[in-house]
Each structure stands twice: as structure tokens, then as C-alpha cells.
């Protein structure tokens, strides 16, 4: 355990050093991810105002709260491993990782966590700015916030394991960009990014309830907003737990057979 802490600490240091080399591109990516929820916020607030102040259960201040929290959740749970693996496998960079006495997943987890720590210095001030600008309907309860942090942590790992597993498709095809695209489009819809899920058609809601997207993004958001009953909260955690286990099992299976394939073909 101590050994892993030491490795993670070393990974943190290098990732942060690397990220500082790319301040400009880091900021541009960041702006992109902040803009998306702001655009939806403005769109939905406008629609609500046009319809006399409400869309479904949401008034403009609710939308503001929803999208500010969503921005935070999305920032803390997204990963870029799916783009990375394609390169790693084609360029043989994976070989270097495989020769090390540490599973390659650790450096990815560490990379993502350290990136998020760095990002938080921008995300929180941005959230505060948006708070001032949009006057959201967001009340702070310590207990809710504690639950939110739990849900967010599980969401991070769940999403990380799922996207890491999907990234491994690069072992079999060099065209996994298409699969990534599909995943992102589905996610846009079903994770509650384009609109709060309860505003979507019934059928879409039912699909969203089964798939992991909602539980990785919308669930922590709704939880923080205080829109969920106790029963819904426990259901949410159960779904998160279930998907966490499923994604971890899938990851192990896919990794094992991917490595088998890699070591049969080489790079």
C-alpha cells in the first residue's frame, strides 16, 4: 500500500509538471468544457422564460443550479484515456508500460486525479463566477454535500473504468474513434448534459435508467440540487455500485484478452 502511495505521488508530480508545459492547450480545453454547460444553461433559461417561467419542474434558477453543478461533475469525472490508447497501441508506447513492474492503469488513474486537482483551481472560481452571474437556486446542506462527494467519487471511478475498458478496443481495431464518437453522443443525451433527464421522453428516461451515463453524471447533480428523495438516493447509489462492479469486471476481462491479442501480434 505504502509502495502504491509512493508511486502515485511520483506520478502526480510528473503529470503536474507535464501539464504546466501545456498551459495554453489546457486552458483551451477547459474553456470548451465550461462553455458547453453555459450554452445549455442559457438555452434552457431562455426556453423557460418564453414558456412563462417553467420547463417541467425547472425554472431558470433551477437550470442555473443544474448546469453549474453539472459543469463541476463533468470536470471531475471525464477522462481522455480513449484517445490515448489508440496512440499507445499503434506507436508501441504500450510496450514500454508493459515492461514496468506496475500495471499501466495506475499511471492513468494518477494522471486523471492530478489533472483534476489542477483543474479545480479553475473550476471552482468559474463556478463562483457563474453563481454570481446566474443566481442559481442552490442551497448548501452539509449532509447533502457529503453524499454528493461520495457519489462524485464513485462516479469518477465508474466512468474511468468504463472509458478505460472502451479505450482497450484499440487492441482490436485502429478505428476506435468511431466508437468513441458514439459513446460521447450517447453520453451527451443520456447523462443529462443536453437536458435534465426528467425533461426527456419517457422511453429515453427508461433507457437512461439502465445505462451507466445517468449514474455517472446526472445522479450526483440531482443529488446536490436536493431534487431526490431518500429512496431515489439509495437507488442511485445502488446503480452506481452495480455499474462500478460491472465496469471493473469488464475491464479485467477485456484487459486480459487484449493483452493476449497484443502479445500475439506485437506492435
Amino acid at each position, binding site marked *: 500500500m505504502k509502495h502504491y502511495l509512493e508511486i502515485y505521488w*511520483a506520478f502526480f508530480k510528473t503529470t503536474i509538471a507535464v501539464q504546466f508545459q501545456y498551459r495554453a492547450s489546457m486552458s483551451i480545453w477547459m474553456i470548451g468544457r465550461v462553455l458547453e454547460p453555459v450554452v445549455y444553461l442559457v438555452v434552457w433559461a431562455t426556453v423557460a422564460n418564453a414558456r412563462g417561467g417553467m420547463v417541467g419542474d425547472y425554472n431558470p434558477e433551477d437550470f442555473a443550479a443544474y448546469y453549474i453543478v453539472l459543469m463541476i461533475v463533468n470536470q471531475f469525472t471525464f477522462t481522455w484515456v480513449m484517445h490515448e490508447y489508440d496512440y499507445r497501441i499503434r506507436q508501441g508506447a504500450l510496450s514500454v508500460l508493459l*515492461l514496468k*513492474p506496475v500495471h499501466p492503469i495506475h499511471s492513468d488513474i494518477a494522471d486523471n486525479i492530478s489533472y483534476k486537482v489542477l483543474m479545480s483551481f479553475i473550476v471552482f472560481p468559474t463556478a463562483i463566477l457563474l453563481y454570481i452571474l446566474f443566481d442559481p437556486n442552490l442551497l448548501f446542506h452539509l449532509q447533502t454535500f457529503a453524499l454528493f462527494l461520495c457519489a462524485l467519487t464513485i462516479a469518477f471511478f465508474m466512468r474511468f473504468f468504463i472509458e478505460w475498458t472502451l479505450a482497450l478496443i484499440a487492441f482490436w481495431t485502429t478505428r476506435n474513434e468511431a466508437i468513441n464518437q458514439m459513446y460521447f453522443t450517447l453520453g451527451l443525451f443520456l447523462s443529462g448534459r443536453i437536458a435534465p433527464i426528467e425533461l426527456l421522453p419517457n422511453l429515453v428516461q427508461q433507457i437512461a435508467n439502465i445505462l451507466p451515463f445517468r449514474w455517472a453524471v446526472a445522479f450526483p447533480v440531482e443529488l446536490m440540487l436536493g431534487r431526490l428523495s431518500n429512496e431515489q438516493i439509495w437507488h442511485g447509489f445502488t446503480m452506481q455500485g452495480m455499474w462500478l462492479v460491472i465496469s471493473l469486471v469488464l475491464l479485467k476481462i477485456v484487459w486480459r484478452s487484449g493483452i493476449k491479442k497484443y502479445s500475439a501480434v506485437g506492435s
Partner: protein
Amino acid sequence: MATTPDITIQNLRKTYVVPERDTGLGAAIKSLIVRKTRDVEAVKDITFTVEPGEVVGFLGPNGAGKTTTLKMLSGLLHPTSGDISVLGYTPFNRNKEFLQQITLVMGQRNQLIWDIPVGDSFERNRAIYRLPTDEYNHTRDELVDLLDLAELLPKPVRNLSLGERMKCEVAAALLHRPQVLFLDEPTIGLDVTMQRRIRTFIGEYNKRYNATVLLTSHYMADVEALCKRVIIIHHGQLLFDGALTELVNRFSPHKTIVVDLDIEQADLSNYGDVITAEGNRITLRVPKSETATVTGRLLADLPVIDLTVADPPIEEVIEQVFST
């Protein structure tokens, strides 16, 4: 008592299945329906052992199966059949204790992180390999000293020249002081000085730690300087395994005689094959068995200033091997 070999390979084979298709649109469409594949036997049947502390040159033309073999030895590739054991481990299980004791250096692959100072990448490897701080500091200082890296440590990798980067790559790959080194073209693309530096270093490392080294190189100077023993493979098969000197004896039935004469433009074609004639220096190739006679005749017949008999250059011998 015989020592246990560090590396044992027995009847090793590796067959790749590669997709195949003819050129052209028709073939492209056809390949959507029927996928044709072809088996490529990269390594056909190789058996050898390497004892602890040996430095072995692993030679063969491009595509002979050298890299494939090194990848199987370091656990990156799964052999199609045959047995393979390194330090008592089965490489493709990629056991942590095994990985902790080996290293594979491949020409262009990077250990180092592009954007940060070399020293930081070293530090990262220290954590990954769980090296105690004083042991790590000791090894690092030694490597820095042997390879003359002191000035490079604070520089980001992207600001290094190819040669500087290669030196750092080699050092990074050896920080955990591996017992077995697989070096795939460690000097490729480097200038003569840098090649010599790396070469001397490998020799020094081998002596200091009694490390086992299996090395491929296209530069025969590397092989001559480092390897008493060479293993030659061609088309995935073992052609030769033995001492470098024996290789020359076996595959080159000729010797080279270089004579400096006191006269210009002498015709020595009835003494042997004239390879070059520049002014009063003439190089002859004669069958090995006739070396003594020809030398005697030359000395008796001609005003010889200087005469040397040598084995032909190793490159020539290797060429000879591959043409058989």
C-alpha cells in the same frame, strides 16, 4: 558445478497471422467479405542458452527475427511454441519480480517523458521500481558519471539531441540495475563518438554488475568490442552460435594481406586477388591455407616495406554468412 543459464530458449517459434489483400478497389471490396490471412514465421526454431555475465551479439539482417526474439524474451510477445526461461521466469507471465530484473532498450522507444527534465523521469522510475533512495542515488550517480549526463539531467527531453537522448534512455532503463539486458540497436543513428561511448558503457556495466547482455546491432564495431560470442539468425533460424573468432574461421576461408612496396604500380595478380591497389599499397585476398606461402613469396620476390596479414573485416564475413 555448472551455473544455471540466465536465458534458456528451446525450439522457440513465433508465427504471426497477418491480413493480406491485393492492391486495387476490387480487392478492397472483396476483403470486406472474405478476409485472407497469411502466416508469417518470424522465428522458426531457435535454441540457445546464455550464461550469467555473458555479452552475446545477436545478429541477423533486417527481418531475421531478432526483435521478435527479444520481445519474447522480455515478455511482450507470447511464443507460438517452444520453451523460454529468463532468470527462471516465464517472460510472458510478466511477473513483477521478473520485470524488476530485466530491461529492454529499443532504439526509438521512450522511457523518458518528453516534456519534463530527464532527472524527473529518472525519479519516476525510482518510484515504479521501488528503489530505496540511497541505492537509487548511488546507481544514478554512477550512470551519470559513466555516461556523462550531469548537464543533461535538468533539461527537458525535447531539448536533447538524438545522441543525448539515447544516453539518457539507456540510463533510465538501467536505474533499477537489471541483471539481464536486452538491447535492440542501442547505438542506431548515433555518431561514432557517441556509439563508442555507449559501447564502452555497456562493457563497463557488464563488468561491474556481472550482468547478462543480449545485444543486436548493425554496427560490427559494437559487436567486436563487446561480444566474445555471437548468435546469428537468418529467416528465423539459427545459423551460427559460437565465438566471434570461430565465426571468422568458419565462414571466411580467406585472409587479407596488405603490402607496402618500394615500387609503384606492381602487378600482384598472380599472388592472389587484388582487392585494392593505391599507389604502392596493395591489398590482396588469398585462401587461408596459402597465406604462409604467398607471404613468403611476396617477401622473397618484391621490395616489401611493410606487410600485414589480417582477417577480412567482420562485415564481410557476416555478408558471407547470409549469402550461404
